[in-house]
């Protein structure tokens, strides 16, 4: 059984490692999605090192929590979280998007241990998560379903079909986390197609909604725990994140949604992240 990490300092250091992995992976792959992946390092750290009940040594453990990634394009951060928690060797991270790699450009179920679902086309993951939660509830299983969704994919009508069904079946065992980073390929979500007021939308669809700072690992964990205490209603945690967080030149820039770093970009990003790591290690707590 996987041991949870409770020290926030340790968790922040893991998130730093994941960020560095993502920068290197995307540089090696020469394509992929930088900003969203880096911006999700804290949430994936919280999930894989604290929130989820899972066992990297036994990926098919029947009682594991299910983690469904809907916005598959952020998979570099997902792969790094899986490798760092022990699902497969870290060296393999550098094969991302290459011929013969198990690390497909968007996750493929069965390709790598720890991947619950193949994803890519936006708006599909929440439906799959709802299906799993319906079975878990009907069979009174203890495991929960967590689903990562993006803010841009709220523009897909299917998201709302799934939201309605989750409320109908009173899926208290379903926690969705929305990466509210405000960017999508063509610009800012509120310019491309406004999704606000997104919290009110989910509330009116019968969901419990929690807003959280998506870079505060403790608050992310608290929000997940709170969602477990809400019965008969699914929870949407709206995690407000900064795309490219902790890499200064990527932060808040939608141009970085779908492009990889150059060698110069990588060196600069890694040096910033190393500095941050040194400072964090020196901190008392």
């Amino acid at each position, binding site marked *: 059984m996987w041991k949870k990490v409770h020290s926030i300092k340790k968790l922040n250091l893991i998130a730093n490692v994941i960020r560095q992995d993502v920068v290197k992976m995307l540089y090696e792959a020469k394509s992929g999605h930088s900003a969203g992946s880096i911006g999700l390092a804290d949430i994936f750290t919280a999930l894989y090192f604290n929130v989820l009940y899972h066992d990297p040594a036994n990926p098919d453990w029947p009682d594991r929590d299910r983690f469904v990634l809907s916005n598959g394009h952020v998979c570099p951060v997902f792969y790094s979280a899986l490798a760092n928690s022990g699902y497969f060797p870290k060296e393999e991270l550098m094969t991302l998007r290459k011929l013969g790699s198990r690390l497909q450009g968007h996750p493929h*179920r069965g390709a790598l241990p720890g991947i619950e679902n193949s994803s890519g086309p936006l708006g599909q993951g929440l439906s799959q998560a709802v299906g799993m939660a*319906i*079975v878990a509830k009907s069979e009174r299983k203890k495991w929960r379903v967590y689903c990562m969704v993006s803010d841009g994919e709220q523009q897909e009508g299917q998201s709302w079909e799934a939201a309605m069904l989750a409320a109908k079946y009173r899926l208290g065992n379903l926690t969705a986390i929305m990466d509210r980073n405000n960017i999508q390929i063509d610009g800012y979500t509120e310019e491309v197609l406004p999704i606000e007021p997104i919290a009110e939308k989910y509330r009116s669809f019968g969901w419990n909604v929690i807003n959280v700072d998506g870079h505060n690992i403790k608050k992310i964990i608290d929000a997940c725990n709170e969602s477990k205490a809400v019965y008969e209603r699914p929870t949407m945690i709206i995690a407000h994140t900064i795309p490219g967080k902790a890499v200064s030149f990527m932060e808040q820039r939608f141009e970085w949604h779908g492009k990889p770093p150059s060698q110069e970009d990588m060196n600069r990003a890694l040096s910033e992240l190393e500095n941050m790591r040194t400072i964090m290690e020196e901190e008392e707590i």
Partner: protein
Amino acid sequence: MIADLNKPEAKKPTRDGFGKGLLELGEKDSNVWALSADVSESTRTHWFAEKFPGRFIQVGVAEQNMAGVASGIAHCGKTVFVSAFAAFSPGRNFDQIRVSVCYNDVNVNFHASHSGITVGPDGASHQILEDIALMRSLPNMIVISPADMEEARKATIAAAAVKTPCYIRTSRQNTPVFTTPDDKFEIGKSSVIREGKDVAIFAHGVVTYDSFLAAEKLRQKGIDAAVINCHTIKPVDEEAILKYAKQCGLIVTVEDHQVIGGLGSAVAETVADRCHVPVKRHGIYDRFCESASASELLQKYQLDADGIARKVEEEMKVKK
């Protein structure tokens, strides 16, 4: 098959066969689940739903979500049957079937009723004639179009037994029940309704029986037509196609579907790959149809026995 093929006792829709098969599966296996998008009665899923409400999910008018939810349920080890009108599933949710189901490699089976022009008065929007083309293009997908109610029942049971996704196409049109519970049904193996040496008619679904009647009419004109019930369009029975291509020197495919992408394409592709025998693809010729009764439409588009016989006769003239 029944003793006298010219005298079938009952006429029933293939959707009823699906409903019966699903109910049988539900009784035998508590891992079988079913979903419907607001058409549980029309798709005959309601027989299962009434008996096993805990394993039936009513998703409302939301076919895209239905495919995704089915994927999630199947992910938990269940055998899932999803039902809707063919116009909307797969008509509306191709992407979800492709990725949430096929690329996730889960055991979700799609039952699509109300296919083809036999939907009749509802008109062209609901008469989907492109569904087989969509489904047979997908990796891992098996495509079945049963010829009668009994075969639809067996196809449903067979679909549950294979771990890859299946597409089962049915109709609400009453058609003669000419197969019996004793007939063997095997996915990918066509069955010969009538032997012949001049031309081989490959048909599926609701026009299969009329293809047999067409062959009976052709006999009076001195044409000896074989009739093959090609219920599985993917994987198509290549062995039978090549055998009859050689035996008859002419194949005519008959289907309530566009001539692009259906059984006609599957047969033509097989023949083009392996031998040189003419294949006439008969069906709907790249167009939308219109409202009328099913029998009026079958007559207008030459998919009734007379129409099929005429088409085959025309091709026989070209052959000679």
